[in-house]
């Protein structure tokens, strides 16, 4: 298993991340996509979030160990952004499940559907969207380097490193997928 994931190519990670972004965009407007699609995509996105974090687990461990230590400003901002994003997404997915009107009831599970949870879901989802924009922006240079590498163009820096790691951040041995 370790060999499989450690050899997961950068293209695979990029496709996974891109898929998450597309799914997030699809979730923005439940009126447009339909409630059933909205709920199922949200549930799947919650599951894929686990894969996304697991793939970047070494970075999570590295920055968590240095939570109270001195860190470069960029890494600290990334740490805070990612922490907030995880919290808001966990709440958004959880509250979405709590107010599910189609997905869970179709499985025979009734949910609370209270207005409190609807408000929590709206707030956490909107906060998540804003933070996702910031998250993508903070990792945008990694995205571009990876795209260039996949396209066969030379890159100046190791494309396996996220921006925070490549410049003043914590360096961990992420698989290059080579």
């Amino acid at each position, binding site marked *: 298993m370790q060999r499989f994931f450690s050899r997961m190519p950068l293209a695979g990670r990029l496709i996974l991340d891109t898929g998450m972004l597309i799914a997030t965009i699809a979730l923005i407007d439940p009126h447009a996509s339909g409630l059933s699609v909205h709920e199922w995509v949200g549930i799947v996105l919650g599951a894929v979030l686990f894969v996304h974090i697991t793939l970047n687990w070494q970075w999570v461990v590295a920055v968590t160990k240095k939570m109270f230590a001195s860190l470069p400003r960029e890494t600290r901002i990334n740490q805070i952004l990612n922490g907030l994003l995880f919290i808001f997404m966990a709440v958004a997915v959880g509250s979405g499940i709590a107010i599910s009107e189609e997905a869970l009831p179709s499985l025979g599970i*009734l949910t609370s559907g209270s207005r409190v949870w609807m408000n*929590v879901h709206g707030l956490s989802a909107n906060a998540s969207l804003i933070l996702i924009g910031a998250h993508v922006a*903070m990792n945008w240079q990694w995205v571009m380097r990876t795209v260039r590498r996949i396209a066969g163009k030379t890159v100046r820096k190791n494309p396996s490193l996220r921006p925070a790691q490549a410049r003043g951040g914590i360096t961990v041995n992420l698989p290059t997928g080579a």
Partner: protein
Amino acid sequence: MTAFMRWIAPPFVILAAAIVVFAVTSIGATGSLPRGSISQARLTSEIAPATGVRISGQAPIARTGNANANATAGAIARPGPSGRGNLSQSSSGIMVLVTLLTKSALVIGVPGLATYLAYVFFLQRRDERPVLA
């Protein structure tokens, strides 16, 4: 780092963290942990035991053992909390795409662009070397 610690444990740690976050939010928002229940149509005809709320204004559904019919009846009878029932009817065509792209540009693109500009102009330092963990 062993394979267990690298690939098996993280999902459980993430799940535990997510549960803790959600539980804390639930207690903060509602004063209690969230509770779900098995479809009441499968258990009883009219009253949801967990909440004591009547889930249908219709006559009680007889327990005939027809699980599919009862489940369907329960799903239909379940009231939408805020009239979201109309969300089940999705739009179609180019308007969906336009709507999604416009909204995503506003709620994801604008904060992302602002963050990227701040990142490039205020955070990026090309002369910094990576700090080893």
